[in-house]
């Protein structure tokens, strides 16, 4: 069915250059979507509504390019009780995401083209968000030999990483950065020097001492970021730093960018929304890796987002069941679900005046696309209609029981947030509708 989106404000950071003058204004627009593509864009009421279109009144809402989450863990194959590709895609579209890139740490690992193909096939069957698989750097995530980047690239991967299993072997990381150049693949690094955090389960600091929990110092992240930056400079490869959590990391990336090194970075909403204090009471939903840090780190992350040091915001959606979370803190798995809270938590930064709406959308769509060498999503005539519709003022209480994700491990349960995706459109089809 063709759609006529009436009276929404368009926020499209891909168009800041002004190629489409109408988009630069703040006037509400009407968008006609025909056969999955954007057929026309006009100021509200300027054009007649085509007879075949379903009219959707979007007064007060914002239309943006579909959001892209560049760091999601789908648990299929292997741990379907936590999340399947289909439920992950459902959670994605419920959060305004039209595309997600999924990490290779499935069982078996996505380190060869047959797993890549399996993921893509399952995603196609789900028929919701576009799924971009990310391949492993090393076979089996063992950190020993390179996985088949070429084969996986041909099958559809968009990046390589051993996420969660940091590449401790410096030469392997060097070779990965070099070899990935042949296939125009960014190398995503989970930066953690494992020898500096043996046994650590939370940030090393006042709270870890108080709780008697072994700590992970921020330097464990920082020294590896320094290594990756130097290796990127040496090899000319593209390194992308995953989930930046510490102040020193932001400083290192800022300096590297200033000196022209090809490095990009993301953070996750929890690193600008929570501190290590959230662990108090041994709440395993505040256990993640990298760990939640201090208020100073949170401030530095926000500063890094503002000045562009941190390019992207990614959910690091990491579903776990109560089997992994309702246990002793040391034994709990790392990570939280994030697809359905990433946008609202990012909008918190907008409401607080840290980011403009356009900057927030850029970090959740345009920049991830650029880093992953995807087509830059844009609201223009002739473009595929992958859109997120956001009500920036809708207040709601986070309720994990309402999540589409199978897993409910979120530290944000019960939070009142303002602003959320209210409709998601993929290929001109409404895949999520929460309009009031």
């Amino acid at each position, binding site marked *: 069915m063709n759609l006529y989106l009436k009276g929404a404000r368009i926020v499209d950071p891909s168009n800041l250059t002004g190629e489409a003058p109408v988009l630069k204004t703040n006037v509400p627009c009407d968008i006609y979507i025909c056969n999955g593509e954007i057929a026309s864009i006009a100021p509200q009421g300027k054009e007649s509504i085509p007879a075949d279109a379903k009219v959707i009144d979007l007064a007060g809402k914002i239309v943006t390019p579909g959001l892209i989450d560049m760091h999601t863990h789908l648990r299929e194959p292997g741990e379907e009780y936590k999340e399947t590709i289909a439920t992950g895609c459902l959670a994605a579209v419920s959060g305004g995401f039209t595309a997600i890139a999924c990490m290779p740490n499935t069982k078996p690992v996505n380190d060869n083209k047959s797993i890549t193909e399996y993921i893509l096939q399952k995603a196609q069957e789900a028929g919701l968000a576009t799924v971009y698989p990310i391949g492993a750097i090393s076979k089996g995530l063992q950190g020993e030999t390179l996985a088949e980047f070429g084969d996986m690239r041909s099958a559809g991967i968009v990046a390589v990483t051993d996420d969660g299993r940091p590449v401790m072997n410096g030469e392997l990381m060097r070779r990965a950065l070099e070899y990935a150049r042949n296939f125009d693949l960014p190398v995503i690094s989970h930066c953690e020097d494992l020898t500096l955090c*043996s*046994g650590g389960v939370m940030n*090393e*600091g*006042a709270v*870890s*001492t*108080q*709780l*008697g*929990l*072994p*700590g992970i110092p921020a330097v464990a992240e920082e020294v590896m970021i320094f290594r990756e930056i130097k290796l990127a400079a040496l090899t000319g490869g593209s390194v992308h730093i995953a989930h930046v959590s510490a102040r020193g990391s932001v400083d290192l990336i800022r300096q590297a960018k200033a000196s022209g090194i090809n490095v990009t970075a993301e953070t996750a909403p929890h690193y600008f929304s929570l501190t290590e204090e959230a662990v108090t*009471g*041994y709440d395993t939903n505040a256990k993640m890796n990298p760990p939640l840090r201090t208020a100073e780190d949170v401030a530095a992350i926000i500063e890094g987002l503002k000045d562009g040091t941190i390019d992207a915001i990614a959910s690091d959606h990491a579903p776990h069941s109560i089997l992994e979370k*309702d*246990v*002793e*803190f*040391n*034994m709990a798995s790392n990570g939280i679900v994030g697809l359905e809270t990433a946008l609202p938590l990012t909008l918190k930064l907008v409401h607080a005046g840290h980011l403009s709406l356009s900057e927030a959308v850029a970090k959740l769509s345009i920049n991830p696309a650029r880093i992953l060498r995807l087509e830059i999503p844009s609201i223009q005539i002739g473009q595929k209609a992958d859109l997120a519709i956001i009500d920036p003022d809708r207040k709601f209480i986070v309720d994990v029981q309402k999540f589409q994700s199978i897993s409910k491990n979120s530290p944000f349960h019960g939070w009142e947030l303002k602003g959320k995706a209210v409709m998601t459109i993929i290929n001109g089809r409404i895949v999520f509708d929460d309009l009031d």
Partner: protein
Amino acid sequence: MKEKPFTIKHVLDIASLSPDQITYILDTAESFKEISTRSIKKVPTLRGKTVINLFFEPSTRTRASFEIAAKRLSADTLSISASTSSVVKGETLIDTARNLEAMQPDVIVLRHSLSGAPHLLSRHVRASVINAGDGAHEHPTQALLDLLTVREKKGKIKGLKLAIMGDITHSRVAHSNILGFTKMGANVVVSGPATMIPPYIEKLGAKVTLSIKEAVQGADVIMALRIQLERQNKLSFPSIREYATYFGLNTQHLALAASDAIVMHPGPINRGVEISPELADGPHSVILDQVTNGVAVRMALLYLLLGSETRMSHGDTKKDENNPPSPPFSKGGNPLSPPLEKGDTGGFSGKSQ
């Protein structure tokens, strides 16, 4: 509804106890000491109550102490040594707890190698939970018995200088004592190898010095800690010999302390490593008094957690206005028979009302 004078459900850590509550526990413990000196060391206070000691870590002293404390109050006790490996094999702590819960215990005393395990347990059982040591977090009953010992020997806690020496990072005893002694107004200094002093320990209230001599200078209480060889990752110090040479406490250190200083150790002792035999067995040592007081403190806690039900079931309807609570018995008085001096707290005597 009657206000309970001591409304704590669980004893998970010193961090969540107020100075008034600590004083109240110590006063109660003091009054319980007399029972252990009788020829028949048993009172019927907790008859019909069940206390389970669930120990996931080896322990001689603490487990025996809890067991004796419960038995002297006539509670039924059961001690379970569960190896953490059985948890790895399959049954989770929560499943274990739920199984025990099905047998209707009143108190579960838990020792566990992982910090926060008692907190997790307390969220899943109806019984009261007492933390008998969790990982590197806290060992609240040890701190209470240490506080009782110091108060007994020194007549006060406030204003004293306590030096805690050794492996602070892995010591739940150190953490609980820093919190407990600081709350009660003592000045706490910690010292040891820099590799064993955790970051931000000052935030718990301790001063840090790397000079052993500075730490013990003028100290009223010197507390040595066991080096926990099982928790070291071999990078904290080069050898036991070097540790003993540079960080072991001996009579030279005692000479720097206050002339009437007392020497404490939570046990078990590595003789000749963190403390010299002369010091451990010398006239300043109160190490065995600590053990004696351990029984009294644990009796007090069991009584306070369970005794209030007993009181209520014996028909005391008078409103108790002691909030914050005051000691149930006058110092040196008999906690169980005959009743109290203070008429308006008569409910505490329970059985006799």
